[in-house]
């Protein structure tokens, strides 16, 4: 990681400072400020190129990759799209997305449970930003950690599915508070799972009334256009 340059938020108050003496420094340094700085930098860089970025977050196996693939297949005739794929290991997801014929960068975090702004900065170096309108950033499957690490995207899509059971939203409230759109995926098997997707939508609406909730199925195409519309990606 990059070394962190410290500039103190308020004037340094040195209590005592002589040779061999103990002294205190009082400060207000955000431990994650380096990530936040890099996220801001990524955001400015994307804005200056007129590129929109969607951070796609959600649980393991909820269908993030399938949803991205379905959206690309609808959007690629009108928009120039690239995808950044985050995973602990393997290139399985980026191989799936590449079949749509859009540029894809695989980011393997190795040991980390989330993407961070520095990894995105490096990924952006490998994408032709001048020739793009939109980037999907697929975060590592995880409903906890990615919420703490902004990447520089301008909107967040959270994906959960009925196969994870009826309590995914209430158990992970923090993940939904900043979402623009929440997709409740695999609704084609909701009955078989005995999970009511409307209950999940109501949970989201209570937590974050500003978020749009869409029921989707990547298998039969339900709701894909709606997600695109609610994300504000239509008619650009």
């Amino acid at each position, binding site marked *: 990681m990059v070394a962190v340059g410290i500039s103190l938020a308020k004037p340094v108050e040195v209590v005592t400072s002589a040779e061999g003496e103990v002294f205190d*420094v009082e400060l*207000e*340094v955000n431990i994650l400020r380096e990530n936040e700085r890099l996220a801001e930098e990524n955001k400015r860089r994307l804005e200056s190129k007129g590129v929109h970025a969607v951070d796609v977050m959600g649980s393991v196996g909820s269908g993030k990759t399938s949803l991205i693939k379905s959206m690309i297949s609808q959007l690629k005739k009108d928009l120039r799209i690239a995808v950044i794929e985050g995973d602990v290991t393997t290139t399985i997801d980026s191989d799936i997305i590449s079949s749509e014929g859009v540029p894809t960068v695989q980011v393997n975090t190795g040991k980390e449970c989330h993407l961070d702004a520095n990894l995105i900065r490096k990924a952006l170096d490998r994408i032709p930003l001048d020739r793009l309108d939109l980037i999907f950033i697929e975060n590592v499957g995880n409903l906890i950690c990615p919420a703490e690490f902004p990447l520089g995207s301008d909107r967040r899509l959270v994906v959960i599915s009925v196969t994870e059971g009826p309590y995914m939203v209430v158990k992970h409230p923090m993940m939904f508070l900043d979402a623009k759109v929440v997709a409740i995926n695999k609704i084609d098997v909701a009955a078989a799972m005995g999970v009511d997707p409307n209950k999940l939508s109501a949970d989201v609406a209570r937590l974050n009334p500003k978020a749009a909730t869409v029921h989707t199925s990547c298998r039969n195409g339900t709701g894909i256009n709606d997600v695109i519309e609610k994300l504000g990606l239509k008619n650009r």
Partner: protein
Amino acid sequence: MHELAIATSLVESLLELVKKQSASKVLEVHLSVGKLRVLSIDQLKFSYEILSKGTALEGSLLDVEETPGYARCTNCHYAEKLEIDDLSFHFSLPQMTCPQCGANLILEGGDELLITRVRMLAPSDGSAVPTNELV
């Protein structure tokens, strides 16, 4: 799960500070961490201990003050402190709904992640401070 990433960031920030202040050693580090941060303090301390080995931070005390978060109603005057393992945490946070009027709650505070105070030792012989590289 991401305590190691945060401890790494913390150690980098502190080593930078040590350099700037020309200190020889860090004795105490005080943090302020919001209770709504999904962070295990024990894991953070453990990661810090490992990462600080062989640096000017080795053996220093990592003290964490946890600061509360508040849920405030967007409609009425209701406001409550969110305490982990308290009813507020198991009702208000998952619902984000005011128990008095049913309107949406918003969160205030509880997301701090700050270094607030560092106690250091100045070099006794006044010589140059050793540069501490991350292990």
